[in-house]
């Protein structure tokens, strides 16, 4: 049978507020256990939550960025369950009335097609603490530094139908939250993690199949792998006539598989009810408009501008707007060298290639946007040729100079464009290679085009790469054709 995969995601984004969502304790990552948890985070008797306004502002800006409705009224509820790292015995979250309503996010797929994924809602909630099982010989340690950290949970509709679409979706969310500056999006530190719902149904069937929920997947790659594994697992069950059971599963990246965590029967009844310690959140139009005025240019807007005013292909625009840092880097390079296409090629090709190889993020690039821009400027104005540019780039990467100009001067890479100098080099090469000249003369018209490459190569070699290749090409053609 032909199966259709249906995927929905719940992405948890840690908001980069300075303090926690309901207390004044710091949210900085990596502190000594339990040094960033105040009485409120510890759930001490008598303590009460006070909502962090900045977390609300960030959630609203996210809502505006995905064209969502921002309801005038939203409510914090308590989700009740017992766990040692959940200090109050409930998590303050939102259910019936979330702060961000329906919206949508465009994703771009590998073949360049754009697809819209609907967002069901996004809500604010507090994170729990962390249970530490190692180093306590049979006991469990509790670190409450993370307890109360503000999270925005973004819940999609089940609009995705492949691992690729799901992956493109999280990348899009990642781009939006980093553009907005509301999260550092650092998946390794848990600033972004997601729960993936996967189900299969016979192609053409309206009704959804039984889903499995894979909890806490924390990298783009793992999302794709976990989904691929689930599709395989579920289709095997269905092909054999079995029934998929509704359950929560965990993805293990070491074994590249998902395994059952709990079934629906074991699931908690969270007994949600409005938190009586927090009044309903009321947001008027003026507030929402003010937040709108604070929005930066978003990925979709940037993409459109890159295509329309800079003349980039949609593919290039898409790659370059993948993250705010990358887009800003590209724009700086582009402004410096004045050639968008050249800048796009170099940033995507040489720069990203090198960064990937060295496992570096764009923000850690040894070559700054100004340096690369300076290099491309010299390429664009014919001071150096493409080959020399690669050398300059390599030197900049190795920190062998502050600017491209310094390296060009030091290594004598300036392109020779002096006609007299090029002409004498061409004459010399023609004189030194009589056999090839004869072959050229005897060749048919269409073969000569290819054969000229040999002479160009020789001239370039003689000039130690500094001759201007188009100029050399033209001059050789003229001289050789004169011999015909």
């Amino acid at each position, binding site marked *: 049978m032909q199966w259709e995969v249906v995927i929905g995601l719940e992405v948890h984004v840690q908001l980069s507020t300075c303090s926690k969502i309901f207390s004044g304790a710091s949210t900085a990552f990596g502190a000594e256990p339990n040094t960033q948890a105040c009485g409120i985070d510890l759930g001490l008797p008598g303590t009460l939550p006070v909502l962090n306004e900045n977390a609300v502002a960030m959630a609203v800006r996210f809502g505006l960025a995905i064209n969502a409705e921002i309801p005038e009224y939203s409510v914090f509820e308590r989700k009740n369950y017992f766990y040692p790292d959940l200090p109050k*015995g409930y998590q303050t979250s939102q259910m019936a009335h979330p702060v961000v309503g329906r919206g949508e996010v465009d994703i771009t797929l590998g073949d360049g097609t754009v697809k819209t994924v609907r967002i069901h809602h996004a809500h604010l909630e507090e994170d729990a603490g962390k249970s530490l099982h190692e180093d306590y010989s049979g006991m469990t340690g509790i670190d409450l530094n993370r307890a109360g950290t503000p999270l925005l949970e973004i819940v999609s509709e089940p609009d995705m139908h492949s691992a690729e679409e799901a992956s493109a979706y999280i990348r899009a969310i990642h781009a939006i939250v980093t553009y907005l500056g509301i999260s550092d999006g650092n998946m390794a530190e848990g600033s972004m993690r997601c729960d993936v719902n996967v189900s299969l149904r016979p192609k053409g069937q309206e009704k959804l199949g039984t889903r499995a929920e894979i909890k806490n997947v924390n990298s783009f790659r793992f999302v794709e792998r976990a989904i691929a594994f689930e599709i395989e697992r579920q289709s095997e069950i269905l092909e054999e006539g079995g029934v998929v059971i509704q359950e929560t599963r965990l993805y293990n990246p070491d074994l590249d598989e998902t395994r059952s965590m709990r079934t629906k029967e074991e699931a908690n009844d969270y007994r949600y*009810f409005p938190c009586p310690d927090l009044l309903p959140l009321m947001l008027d139009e003026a507030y929402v408009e003010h937040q709108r005025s604070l929005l930066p240019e978003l990925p979709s807007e940037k993409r459109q501008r890159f295509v329309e005013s800079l003349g980039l292909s949609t593919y290039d625009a898409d790659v370059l707007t993948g993250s705010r840092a990358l887009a800003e880097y590209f724009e700086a390079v582009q402004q410096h060298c004045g050639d968008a296409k050249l800048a796009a090629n170099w940033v995507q090709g040489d720069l990203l290639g090198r960064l990937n190889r060295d496992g570096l993020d764009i923000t850690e690039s040894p070559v700054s946007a100004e340096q690369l821009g300076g290099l491309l400027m010299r390429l664009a104005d014919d001071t150096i040729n493409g080959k020399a540019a690669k050398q300059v780039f390599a030197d900049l990467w190795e920190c062998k100079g502050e600017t491209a100009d310094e390296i060009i001067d030091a290594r004598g890479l300036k392109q020779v464009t002096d006609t007299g100098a090029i002409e004498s080099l061409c004459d010399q090469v023609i004189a030194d290679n009589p056999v090839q000249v004869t072959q050229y003369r005897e060749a048919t018209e269409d073969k000569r085009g290819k054969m000229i490459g040999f002479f160009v190569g020789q001239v370039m070699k003689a000039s130690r790469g500094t001759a201007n290749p188009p100029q050399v090409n033209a001059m050789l053609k003229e001289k050789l054709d004169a011999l015909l």
Partner: protein
Amino acid sequence: MHDKTLAELARGLAAGDFSSRELTSSLLERIKRHDGALNSFITVTGEQALKEADAADALRQKGEAGILSGLPLAYKDIFCTEGVRTSAGSKMLDNFIAPYNATVVEKLRHAGTVSLGKTNMDEFAMGSSNENSYYGPVKNPWNPTLVPGGSSGGSAAAVAAGLVPAALGTDTGGSIRQPAAFCGITGLKPTYGRVSRYGMIAYASSLDQAGPMARTAEDCAMLMNAMAGHDARDSTSVSRHVPDYTQGLDKPLNGLKIGLPVEYFGEGLSPEVETAVREAVRVYESLGAQVIDVSLPHTSMAIPAYYVIAPAEASSNLSRFDGVRFGHRCDDPADLEDLYKRTRAEGFGDEVKRRILIGTHTLSEGFFDAYYRKAQQIRRLIRQDFLDAFTRVDVLMGPAAPTTAFELGAKADPVQMYLQDIYTIAINLAGIPGISVPAGLVDNRPVGLQILGPHFGEAHLLNVAHVYQQATDWHQRRPEIKE
């Protein structure tokens, strides 16, 4: 000195008749002598009290004393007090030393008051008789075979017995007004949000309210001046001007419109209590007030709605007592589930367990709409009843409790006990203020007159109560205590 009101003691301190140290030590002596029989205190902080008294005396010498400087009081053991055990009357918190002060404690300390200690209470404020305390029941100073009322029974008994001139209580369904009535003192439950809940161990957050318990309305007004006001640490506290509650206490009551809710004078009300309350109302008429019968049609639904909402919130509020971070923990837990189960089984008393179970049930899937949601709808109707009534009258009056204090152990059936709060509970659901003032004695058992006002009308309530206390002497009656 133990017979004096807070206002009288303030005058005495100001006049130099006695020092705060003298006053404090004499009361500590008195607590030592009499509290064994009453059990109204869980913790007495004598040494600390004397230090605070000395500090107040020193301040007075420098001429920097405020009106409350050097005045002793006690806190219901539900208010967190830094460095002092704060038990909420529960074994669960028997070993809990609060690391911070509740906002009201902070405010009253700042005003210069001296804390004598922490008073006994029904466990986590759940009860109407003070028989649910881990530290044993409190005895009513008027008669040790009677309950003092609950859950602020320790505070009420301590004030009535002259162990302390005033104490703080909390009122979730009547826990200030009913024990005040049973012990013959004055107790005010302010408007919800008027006094910060920060640092008050939560029972039912949307109903809990701290308030003063003292001998007179004037004393309550003095305490309210220090207690009331917005607190940035409590999101439900209201940002609104705090009047001087001691101003306007003597305003005459000519033309005051009093409403008598017909539902508060029906079946279940003891005839003697009714007689006393109606007599009090006649005093008001003699002072120029006009009396009208009014109806609060949803009154009969108040107790059922309360016993859905309060336990629902309690079941969640009490989840944090899990043995992981503070409080009681069972010995040698085998695993996590065992830790939770035994810690909570050992730490909580029966009434607390009963309400946690009720609350867990009413919030659970499949029951939420039938119970919790429905109860919230009823709550809105009850609130509307009061809003409607206050368009016709200035205040409402009625009994604070259907009977006078009953015998210890007399109400073994929890539902019989819940009916004790029939006249007080709706006020918490509506969030309006209410005050109970002594208005008679039946067989040497005090009767409380309850006066209700619209939201933020406590200044007027105190005025209405004070003028009555100028005209009568019920508030001056004292239980006989063998010295």
